[in-house]
Structures are given as structure tokens and as C-alpha cells.
């Protein structure tokens, strides 16, 4: 995809563009709203990653003017304020997605991929890995024929891991995806719930620790 990154913080912009390039996209980096408007009027981007707080014209205004000029590129808003108001404002101005700082770069890349295939793909009804089946319609988990009872958090955690088999999630990322709020003990909680899931899913193991990185789910160790 041809992606425009508008972020005034130079280093963050560089990290974002590097992550996007590593994921196989083309990235153009700009640092203010004015030049972003100029660039979008000259060439077409598939996706714009837009910071809200920009020098001069802010992100919301850029977005408003883009939509007014019928620029139909998809837009992901980056904001410092993880507040609902910002999200609502962003989405009502025509943003397609929203990410609060700080975010995991993998998360951004995952959102970019999701937006790319958004209209083609249907939401899965079942998540499957080996003989482990999670039915998303009634939240029932089976390993083979054995039914496994899960608590609320165990279920959410498993859903996150099973959705992207093979991907390594850091504990920090799992915290953010499973718990809605910051938690003083969240690292500990991730460990506790991972070990509970492991016990319940039993052998052969499907949840693997990637040393110093995090956890992943896959068939082979």
C-alpha cells in the first residue's frame, strides 16, 4: 500500500515508516498538516496515518478538509488522548480507525493490514488451531471432544491469541488487548492467565513462551 504518515514527532514518524516498510508497504513521512494537504492533492494514497496534535493545522482539521475535497484514502487517527471524545470526533470526521498513543507498532501494522482487507473479509465465526476450536457465537471452547470452561479473562486472552496464530505478542500488548484499563498488576495477570489457559488446554501444548519476547500460539513448538 502507498501510505502517508503525518506525525510531527520525527523519531516516532521514522519508527512508523520503518515498521510499515518492513511489512511491505511504501511510506511517505510528513511532519505538518499543511504539507500533508499539499501532498494529498498531488498524489493518491491508499492510507493516511494522521496524528491529531500537529503544528499549524491539527489532525482533525486536516481530516475535515481531506473529506471535503473528496479524498477517499483510508485514515487512521493517532491521538495522545485515549478519550472517547477524541475517538468520536475522529470517527465523525471520517476516520476509519483510531489508535491511542502509546501503541504497539505491531498493533499499528495489524490495523493497517485489517483496513486493507476490511471489505473483503468476513468476521470469522470459529477460531481453530489444531484440535482446539473456539466458537465465537457462543464462546464455547473444545479440545477435540472435550469441552473446556473458561473465565471471562481467559476467554478474551485466548481469542486475542487465536486470532493471529504464530504472531508473537509481548506481555504489554496482551495487557492492552485483554484489559480495558491500565492495571497495576497487569504483567502478573498476563502470566497467571496464560498459565491457567495452558493448564486447561493441556497437552500437546499450543501456547508457547518466546523467551524475552512474549507468547504465541502455534501447533509446533
Amino acid at each position, binding site marked *: 500500500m502507498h501510505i502517508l504518515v503525518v506525525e510531527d514527532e520525527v523519531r516516532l514518524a521514522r*519508527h512508523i515508516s520503518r515498521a510499515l516498510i518492513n511489512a511491505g508497504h511504501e511510506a511517505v513521512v510528513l511532519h505538518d498538516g499543511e504539507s500533508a494537504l499539499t501532498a494529498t492533492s498531488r498524489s493518491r494514497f491508499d492510507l493516511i496515518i494522521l496524528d491529531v496534535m500537529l503544528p499549524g493545522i491539527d489532525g482533525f482539521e486536516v481530516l475535515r478538509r481531506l473529506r471535503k475535497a473528496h479524498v477517499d484514502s483510508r485514515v487512521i487517527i493517532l491521538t495522545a488522548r485515549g478519550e472517547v471524545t477524541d475517538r468520536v470526533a475522529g470517527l465523525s470526521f471520517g476516520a476509519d480507525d483510531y489508535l491511542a498513543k502509546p501503541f504497539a507498532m505491531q498493533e499499528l501494522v495489524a490495523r493497517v493490514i485489517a483496513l486493507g482487507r476490511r471489505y473483503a473479509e468476513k468476521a470469522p465465526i470459529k477460531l481453530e488451531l489444531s484440535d482446539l476450536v473456539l466458537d465465537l457465537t457462543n464462546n464455547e471452547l473444545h479440545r477435540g471432544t472435550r469441552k473446556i470452561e473458561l*473465565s471471562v479473562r481467559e476467554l478474551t486472552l485466548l481469542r486475542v491469541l487465536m486470532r493471529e496464530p504464530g504472531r508473537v505478542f509481548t506481555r504489554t500488548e496482551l495487557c492492552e488487548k485483554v484489559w480495558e484499563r*491500565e492495571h497495576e498488576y497487569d504483567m*502478573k495477570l498476563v502470566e497467571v492467565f496464560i498459565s491457567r489457559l495452558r493448564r486447561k488446554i493441556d497437552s500437546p501444548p499450543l501456547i508457547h513462551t518466546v523467551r524475552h519476547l512474549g507468547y504465541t500460539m502455534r501447533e509446533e513448538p
Partner: protein
Amino acid sequence: MKKWPLRWKLALYAALLAIAATLAGAATTWTVMRHREIAAFDRRLTLDAHELFRDVQHFQRDPSRGNQLFEEVFVPLALQHRLVEVTDAQGKMLYLSPGLLEPLSSDGIRTFHTRKIGGRSIRMGEFTHDGLTLRVGADLREINQIGRDIFNGMLVAVPTVLIVVAIGSTWVARKAVAPVEEIRKAAAQITAQRLDQRLPVPPTHDEIAGLIEVLNAAFERLQRSFEQSARFSADASHHLKTPIAVLRAGVEEILAEANNPRIQATAEGLLHRIHQLNSVADTLLLLARADAGRLELHPEQFDLSELLEGVLDDARALAEPLALEVESDVSAHLPLKADRVFVGMIAQNLLENAIKYNQQGGRVRLVARAVNGSVELSVSNTGAGIPKERIPHLFERFYRARGDERVAGSGLGLSTARELARAHGGDISLQRADRSWTELNVSLPQADQRG
């Protein structure tokens, strides 16, 4: 009297002052009048004396009369309540009026003086003429009447003055205080949401106008610092979160690219710290917003029992290694209209504290039920309790009731929870804190029930 309205106090002081002034005036009048009356009295006595001498001269020119005839001459005077004593040059008593029981001893020549005779105040004059000494006196009762008249006058005048002054000064005081009352009303209109309001400055250039100008200047400064703090919470979130995002992106990149396990371990540890830092920044920004009165709630309808299920799940996970028992008594269906994220934070903060300040093998209990349309949570736990002297500080920021540095935590949990409960129109209160059981109660009204 300290609690009296200003205008009553002013009226009282004015009345007291008026009475003092009236009494002082009366006393002065009395002194002056008495002085003048005595002078007039003395003149009358002198006239009497001169008349008497004239009569005596007539008698002395008429040799046919004897000494005893003196009485006839002086009787009319004696009847006029005069006291008279006549002596000749040799000091021989020639006449003593009936009012006098004994001679008036002369203690040196004094033209006029007052002396006490038989318990009465007597004004005396002493005159000499042709070898005769004449002492004439009269009772001062006559002029003491003036003092009584003034006193009687005061009896009537003082209450009259009091009433007039009290009414008058209440009116004046009310008029004087009226602008202050106006200021009070106008100032009450100025709230955190309407800080741009100012008090109307009257066209006069008196003290009240001066006061209003000073107050307006103070409101101006208040508004400016308030806006600064509001801007701070917006700017700070940007200025804190963006560098955290940069840090995190950098560390993630290192983590993803490093092949050295030592670097990976370090990077992962750093990532954890960045996450914690972000969490603290979020809490501080939340409190800053609450302080600035800009905490925005986004009420939605949800089932609290479902939310508590997750929170209890976490609590049991944390309690397990400490061998704590987590009991719960949550009604099956608890519809609540409130900010879901904030309510979750309240429950989570309280349960975390209940686990943190517990004892090995202790208990934690969460009760939630609907009470009169609002929802009540109760979180209680075993543990060492909270020392009495620390209870008043329990909800202060960065305060830790046990003062135990071994227990990790920022000391923001309870103060944040209370801030959030209050933002919902509810509150948190300590129900019990003895050595065996600590219990905190949270009340959360439904969002649309609040005024």
C-alpha cells in the same frame, strides 16, 4: 452576636452611640444649668441681704425700738425658707431664724458656699455692714429640682432616641450593605463552568467600586490559571504520550531485531516499565482533569454484574498465590447507566487494595446490589486494619494508610476511585476499619437520575 448580619450590628452600634451621646449631652446641660442656677440663687441671696441691711438701718435710726423687734423684721424672710443669723461686731447673737437650731459657726469669711446642715444642702452667703454680720442661707432643694427634671426628661428621651436611631441606622446600614449583597449574589454565579463572568462595576468611585475591581482582577487571575491548568491537561497528555510512544516504538524495534538474549531481556523489561509509566501518566492526567472540573463522563447502559465478573476474575488470579479467599455476592442482573471504564476502575482499585493490604490466608468480599435505583458496592477485607489517626487521610493522594513501603503502589488508587465515584454523583465511604475487617462502600446513582 458574631453571627448577626452586618446591618444589625451596625444598627446596634449606632443606637449605643446615640444613647451615650444623649447622656453626655444631658450631663453637660445639667452642669451648666446648675452653675447658672446657683449664680442666680446667690444673686437672690445678695438682694435679700441688702434689703435686710436697709431695714436694719431704718431700725437703728429709730431709737425707740429695741433688739427684740429684729424678729418682726426678719420673720417674712424666714417664712420664705431663708435661714438668717445676725451678729453684732462683738459677735453677740442678735437674731437666729427659727429654721436654725444652733448658730452657724463661721469658718472664715466666704461670700458664698454650700454646706450640709441636718442632712440638707444649704447655700450660705455672709455679709457685713456697719458692724453687723449677716448670714443668709437657703435650701438647695429648689434648684436640685432641675437635675430631676433633666433626669425625667432623659427617661422619655432615651427610648425615643433609641427607637429612632435603631430604625434609622438599620435603614442606613441596609443601604450601605446592599452593594455587598449584590456582590455576593453575582459572585455565587461564577463557577468553574462560567469563570468568564465578572461583577458589574458601579459608576460611583466609592469603596464598593474599589472592592469590585479588586475582586474582578482576582477572578481574572483565577480564570487564567484555571485555563492554564485545563490547557496543561490537554498539552501534558500530548507531551507525555508522544515521547512514551517514541520510546515504546524504539524498544519494540530493538526487541524484534535483537538476537542477543541479554538485550532482549533488557528490552522486554524496559517495555514493561514504559507500560507502567504510561499507566501512571494516565492516572495523573485523569486526576488533573478531575481537578480542573473537566472530567468527561461517557455514560452508557451496561450490566455491572458482567463487568464485575472480569474484575473478580482478576482479583481471584491475584489472590491465589497469597492463599486469599475471594467471596462475592453480586446480583445476577445489575443494570447501570454510568461511564463503564471509570466504574471498572473504581471496582478494580478497591479490590486491588483489599488484596494488597490483606494477610496470609485472609478473605476479600465483594457485594453489589441495586438500592433504590442506584447501585451499591461494598468491598471488604481482613487485614491489619487502618490506624485511627490515619483514617482522615485515607482518601488523600499519595497517602498510604499502612505507611508500609514494602507494599507496592502509587497511593493514588483510593483517591482516584473516590474522584471517579464523585464525578458520577456518588461517593465512597469507610464503613468499618478495625483490626479484623475493613469495609468500603461505594454508591453509584444512575446517570440520568442525577440533577
